[in-house]
């Protein structure tokens, strides 16, 4: 077992290979782009948010490494149906998880598979790229 096996768990590889919500939204209410010069990753995140602040649809496009693709994919799967406030909370939790802070992992659900990325400072940006774009799209 090597140090990186923990980063490339099968669920990440699976999301890399078959990313969820990898498409465009016809008339997104919010959208933003992210770019990571290290890996050349770039991601476009689009959202359709209800008047009551519920994320009705969320999708992404772009290219990048497995970590960034899988992260974007799992983010969309997680956030669909959540409120924007919940999205913000998940962002905070996810960010804390990756930067090695003490964190309640329960609300993060499957996202905890990214904990291993925290060991690799140069790759943390890959995992948070789509999340930062999502947050920027929502205007925070």
């Amino acid at each position, binding site marked *: 077992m*090597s140090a990186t096996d923990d980063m*490339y768990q099968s669920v990440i*590889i699976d999301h890399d290979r078959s990313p969820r919500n990898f498409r465009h939204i016809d008339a997104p209410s919010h959208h933003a782009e992210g770019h990571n010069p290290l*890996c050349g990753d770039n991601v476009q995140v689009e959202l359709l948010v209800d008047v009551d602040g519920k994320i009705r649809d969320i999708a992404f496009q772009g290219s990048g490494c*497995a970590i960034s693709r899988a992260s974007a994919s799992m983010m969309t799967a997680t956030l669909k149906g959540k409120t924007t406030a919940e999205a913000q909370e998940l962002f905070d939790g996810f960010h804390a998880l990756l930067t090695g802070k003490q964190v309640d992992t329960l609300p993060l659900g499957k996202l905890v598979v990214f904990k291993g990325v925290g060991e690799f400072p140069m790759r943390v940006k890959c995992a948070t790229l789509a999340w930062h774009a999502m947050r920027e799209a929502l205007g925070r």
Partner: protein
Amino acid sequence: MKDLRAEFPILATLSRGKPLVYLDSAATAQKPQVVIDAISDFYSHGNANIHRGVYQLSERATLAWDAAREQVARFIGAPDVNEVVFVRGTTEAMNLVAHSFLPRAARPASRAPVVLVTEMEHHANIVPWQLAGATTIAIPVTDAGELDLDAAERMLAEGPSLLAVVHVSNTLGTINPIAQLCRMAHAHGVPVVVDGAQAAPHIPVNIAELGCDFYAFSSHKTFGPTGIGALWAKREHLEAMTPYQGGGDMIDLVTFERTTFAEVPRRFEAGTPHIAGAVGFGVALKWIMALDRPAVEAHEMQLMRTASEQLSAVPGLRLVGTAAQKAAVVAFTLDGAHPHDVASMLDGEGVCVRAGHHCTQPLHKRLGLSASVRASFAPFNNHGDVEALVKGMHKVRKVFA
């Protein structure tokens, strides 16, 4: 060949808990103990500012600095030590030439200069020309990663201000036919700037045989310290060039109305230079010159060939750069796996390779790639290193296939 591993203290360190397999010498070389000791010794027993001190420490530091310049001249076969300018590295060398030489090379002087580069150039040999206001046009690269010399001839005939070309490509490993290119360029009156950053650590360099006008390389890639490098230039060019940076040591007389400048090469070395760096650089070049160079070259070639062959056997792996004349650099891609993921997984095995565009974005675009993985070799690498790389790639393939 003498086993050099014991001379490199870093090879005893672990990477991610595994023995270090360092295959990123093209990014920066590791340092032999003699170089590390030379730097410590300088700071411990010989540190002083140079040139203007009359006391013994300063005298010794000045002599050490001069000796380092002589060592650089010897390394590239330059007959005149004053043709060697100390710079931070290859990048600064190119910027110096772009600032101080390019304007007077422009033909006609009234038009924005055109610098002929190649599709395989490092950003250090593209962006400085652009910042200096030049248009860069590029000699095409074939699919194997060689220069299209017919195109080069046509493009030289159009009369660019300058030909700026890499000696050894940091991505493809290709060794370009510099002597031939210089003859072609000079036939059209075009001066030639050579980026020797990757050649200097791998192949003997002789500027007289190459016939170029400028030659640049970096200490940190030739087993020396960071923050220093050399630009060699023909005396006549240096004499005609305007100063680059201003400050102490590069002047003769300073007044608020008018300032006159020192002789070359000091005119181009403003301020307190990286004295300890030059000393370490000199020791590193001496260390290289003391190697059995044909044996080292043969050893590196063997490692590269073995790696190329065995990597090619990994399903989905494609080599990037298969020129007939190559230095010990092997770049590749793996279907279905992003180069950064490949590098991260190899990192888990203690294998250090580089992933990305290696500062050659235009080359990657030309080859239809967004990035690649690169393994590069040094004299201390051995077949065990190649084995670790190949084994690692089989593992990566299994995960991503």
